[in-house]
């Protein structure tokens, strides 16, 4: 009888773990258990269908259940796993016990619910399941005024897209700017402008105190007064869904995510976990973090699969390249920005530069703003943010990779770059930022931040 792998969860991590394990070790019997009807679609695309940037929800599907079955996977759709017995190595689903030799837990996340009065009213929506999104999209045709709660990446995408659809949007968050957990205020400013141009009303520095209505929500009660609305979209934090794993006795860390090692192994032999249910260390500090992107979940699932299939695959601590379009404006970054560096007390110097995405004379060229954070002593990159039009994603991917390899601002100041008028300017914006930073350092105009002795004002900005 062949060895059996059970994967719990059909999101990015789960599908990667199942398909890659089967591909690398074809004689493995792989079963995937998911509570949902569908698999292999992109939930990240949902806001853009609501905003009518993408015409149909069907376009978000990447594969079908039948295709997975044809590839030899045992697909258990709409099947909730209710128990894991790690000692007997069985799971329970639909009151049936099923044995496993190896197990991957990819139970994902649930959205944080607001802990205020009225949070159970009808009309509060959470974006996750594509079928619910299809139903919700029909409802959007019947409403005029929407409140989006939480200036998280999903919140920014939902607010911008619903504005684009022509709805009146109140965008509510306690922070002083959008994406306050990752973004710096100088990078946030153009996003605010772009969202407002799409008809979004920013309600920043505003606390949600409750939801008002009899059965259905009709307003959001906030610290700044009541905001009438037809529906609310809640976009707060992603909470690791670890209930099943914790009940089985697996360990969670200080973020609430499952603890795994660099092979995605839990402390129980043959039991792995991956995706939004786990925590992994940040490359700069080695502190565990959670709530990363779909590409991280997929890579973690692949890592688990490779190790299950007998390889020795290590998943590195993360440097988190990220990016998104806020309104019509592209922003991105990697590792940490000034806000997080200041919060953590990490010393840094800042190098800033502005370049263009194509030759200046070539039609369609856009400005690209680069901010690099480096260690004041070693000059190694520790974080940064990029914003503008074209090439933000590629620059953030590149910067995250070279930061992981220990690149310094001197390396970047003298980097090679492509010069071809339609796709790249003579001067690379990253190199411009690094050279500006070095010039400021040579002139003695840069102060390190975050160490009180070095900078009582805490300024890391070139003078």
């Amino acid at each position, binding site marked *: 009888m062949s060895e059996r792998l059970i994967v719990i969860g059909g999101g990015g991590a789960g599908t990667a773990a199942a398909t890659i394990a089967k591909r690398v070790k074809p004689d493995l019997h792989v079963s995937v258990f998911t509570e949902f009807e569908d698999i292999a679609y992109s939930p990240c695309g949902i806001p853009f269908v609501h905003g009518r940037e993408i015409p149909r929800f069907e376009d978000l599907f990447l594969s079908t259940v039948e295709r997975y079955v044809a590839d030899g996977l045992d697909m258990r759709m709409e099947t909730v796993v209710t128990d894991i017995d790690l000692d007997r190595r069985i799971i329970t689903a639909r009151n049936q016990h099923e044995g496993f030799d190896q197990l991957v837990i990819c139970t994902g996340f649930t959205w944080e619910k607001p802990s205020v009065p009225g949070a159970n009213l009808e009309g509060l929506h959470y974006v996750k399941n594509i079928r619910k999104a299809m139903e919700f999209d029909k409802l959007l045709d019947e409403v005029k005024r929407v409140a989006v709660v939480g200036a998280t990446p999903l919140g920014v995408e939902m607010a911008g897209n619903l504005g684009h659809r022509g709805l009146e949007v109140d965008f509510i968050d306690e922070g002083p700017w959008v994406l*306050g957990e990752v973004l710096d205020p100088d990078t946030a400013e153009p996003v*605010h402008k772009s969202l407002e141009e799409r008809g979004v009303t920013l309600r920043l520095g505003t606390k949600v105190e409750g939801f008002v209505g009899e059965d259905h929500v009709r307003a959001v009660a906030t610290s700044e007064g009541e905001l009438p609305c037809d529906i609310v979209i809640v976009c707060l934090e992603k909470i690791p869904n670890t209930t099943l794993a914790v009940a089985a006795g697996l360990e969670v860390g200080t973020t609430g995510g499952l603890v795994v090692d660099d*092979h995605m192994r839990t402390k129980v032999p043959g039991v792995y976990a991956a995706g939004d249910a786990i925590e992994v260390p940040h490359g700069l500090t*080695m502190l565990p973090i959670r709530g990363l992107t779909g590409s991280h979940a997929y890579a973690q699932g692949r890592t688990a699969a490779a190790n299950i299939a007998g390889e020795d695959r290590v998943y590195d601590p993360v440097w988190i390249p990220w990016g998104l379009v806020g309104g019509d404006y592209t922003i991105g970054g990697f590792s940490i920005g000034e806000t997080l560096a*200041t*919060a953590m007390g990490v010393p840094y110097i800042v190098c800033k530069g502005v370049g263009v995405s194509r030759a200046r004379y070539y039609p369609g060229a856009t400005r690209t703003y680069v901010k690099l954070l480096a260690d004041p002593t070693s000059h190694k990159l520790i974080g940064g943010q990029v914003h503008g039009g074209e090439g933000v994603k590629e620059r953030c991917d590149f910067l995250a990779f070279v930061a*992981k390899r*220990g690149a310094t601002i001197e390396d970047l100041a003298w980097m090679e770059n492509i010069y071809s008028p339609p796709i790249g300017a003579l001067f690379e914006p990253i190199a411009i930022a690094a050279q500006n930073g070095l010039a400021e350092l040579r002139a003695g105009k840069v102060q390190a931040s975050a160490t009180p002795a070095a900078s009582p004002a805490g300024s890391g900005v070139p003078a």
Partner: protein
Amino acid sequence: MSGLIELKQRLREHAEHHLRVAAMEELRGRYPAGTTPPYRDHSGLLWRYGFVPLYRRVPWEVKERAMHALGMTAEGSGWTPPARSPSDPWVPPANLRR
């Protein structure tokens, strides 16, 4: 879940929240355009006026050493910090070398 783990989670959550809000207020001073004061109520005064100033007085090197010594980092769970040495070229695994 053990009470100790829950306590650690809550402490980390509160510490991060108050450090982040304090950082946001500082950053607003540096980049005032387009921002608004973060929402603040009267809760968490001890965190705001006790923990945050104290944390900020301690140099990063000391905090970093303390986090490692107290097991707050991932090394104890089987992770290795990256070498971050640009001078060392990446070497392909032996079975892939031709």
